[in-house]
């Protein structure tokens, strides 16, 4: 055991200087499971204690990696770019003098990001803890030939929800294999769908509403949701162009608000109560029962993501 001179800190595996790190990373973005994964990796290289990482340095490192990657490969996935855009916004706000409302907002967003990284790191550690334990059937073994004291009293059925689910999935998979290929029905919300929905809904809203509220409420998976956001936004722009609605966004990445134009392009007073829309069977949902107005613009930080 040679006495290590001086340095009390374990030498970090990743160089503290960010440039070589970034260059090392940019060619293997595929090795990461997504932006958060890369951020965590960068953060781990930055400081021993995740509680004290510098979000600003982290942002710079991430942007450097993405910038570098863009030079090499053009097909960088949207996730990476969205995160880059959000981080760039965060950085611009973090650089503002403290005390400004926007700067405070950014501080909060930075704290949330740091907390997410800590959570992910904690779960990684939990996974390692589990992995290190002796696992049954892998490291330790139960009785290989269990004895049943045979007299099988048929006492009910042994089946739980988990096995029912496995059976269902097995059945579906087998069934699919036997069937001829049919392309999966696309469930993405199209601009046309969004136009139709907006046209109906817009008449029911008395005032500015966050356009998020116009998304179809059945979308759950992230891809479908992204598609719905995009098509609803395009539909909103389309309708704004034709003068049916107005759009407003008070600040960058803030909520996008939408309302019906009180006076239509033809100069008539289109009172929200009586118009609905021209081409759909306009249910006359009174403005009072939509409940959407009280959830209008809010400071929810998810809008920026």
């Amino acid at each position, binding site marked *: 055991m040679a006495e290590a001179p001086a340095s009390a800190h374990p030498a970090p595996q990743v160089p503290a200087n960010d440039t070589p790190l970034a260059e090392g990373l940019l060619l293997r973005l595929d090795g990461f499971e997504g932006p958060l994964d890369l951020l965590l990796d960068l953060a781990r290289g930055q400081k021993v204690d995740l509680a004290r990482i510098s979000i600003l340095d982290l942002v710079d490192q991430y942007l450097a990696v993405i910038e570098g990657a863009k030079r090499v490969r053009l097909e960088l996935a949207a996730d990476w770019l969205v995160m880059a855009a959000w981080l760039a916004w965060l950085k611009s706000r973090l650089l503002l003098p403290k005390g400004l409302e926007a700067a405070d907002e950014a501080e909060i967003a930075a704290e949330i990001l740091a907390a997410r990284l800590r959570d992910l790191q904690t779960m990684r550690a939990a996974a390692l803890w589990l992995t290190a334990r002796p696992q049954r059937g892998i490291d330790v*073994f*139960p*009785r*290989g*030939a269990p*004895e*049943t*004291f045979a*007299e*099988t*009293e*048929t*006492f*009910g*059925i*042994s*089946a*739980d*929800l988990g*096995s*029912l*689910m496995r*059976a*269902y*999935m*097995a*059945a*579906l*998979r*087998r*069934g*699919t*294999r*036997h*069937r001829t290929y*049919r392309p*999966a*029905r696309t469930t993405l919300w199209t601009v046309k769908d969004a136009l139709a929905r907006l046209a109906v809904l817009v008449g029911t809203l008395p005032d500015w509403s966050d356009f998020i509220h116009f998304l179809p409420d059945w979308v*759950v*998976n992230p891809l479908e949701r992204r598609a719905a956001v995009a098509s609803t936004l395009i539909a909103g722009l389309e309708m704004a162009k034709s003068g049916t609605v107005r759009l407003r966004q008070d600040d960058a990445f803030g909520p996008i608000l939408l309302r019906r134009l009180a006076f239509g392009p033809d100069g008539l007073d289109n009172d929200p109560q009586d118009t609905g829309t021209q081409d759909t069977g306009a249910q006359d949902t009174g403005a009072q029962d939509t409940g959407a107005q009280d959830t209008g613009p809010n400071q929810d930080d998810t809008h920026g993501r």
Partner: protein
Amino acid sequence: MADDDFATQVRLAEALIFASDTPIPPRALTQALPDGADLDAVMAALQNIYTDRGVILVQAAGGWQFQTAADLAPQLKRVIKIPRRLPRVAMETLAIIAYHQPVTRAEVEEIRGATLSQTTLDALLDTDMITPKGRRETPGRPTLWGTTPDFLTHFGLNDLRDLPRREDLLVEPPTIPAAPADET
């Protein structure tokens, strides 16, 4: 040192016989033990440990295995009740009926991509978890099947709506023959 080695050999033999799903032949034990180990001595020591225990070490079918002491079996028999496991086919059929009800036998077969035997259907009927739910008004008037309240009770569900959502099970749900109600 030598004692340590011997003790370890006994422990290893014990663990191997315990974990094996078939009797372990002496040949396999010799292979598992270090070269030069005295198998007879190891097994004698192990057998000695299991004298007068609730479990005994016996040689059967050309190998070693553990067995419950014969004198205890009667007392244990009373205790154990073994719930019957549904065969895989029956489980799959039950799951399909649960998700697609009311559903005909032909539709179940199409979803599974395999024929459904009368035996399986009878076995399911025996469990009281499925029941006929009328007939579909199409040529042949096939019987429709659905689940019973017993099904819900068994799986601890309050309501059919408490079954896990299909989209939570499958990232990309395969195209399924449409739910019978909307078509045909």
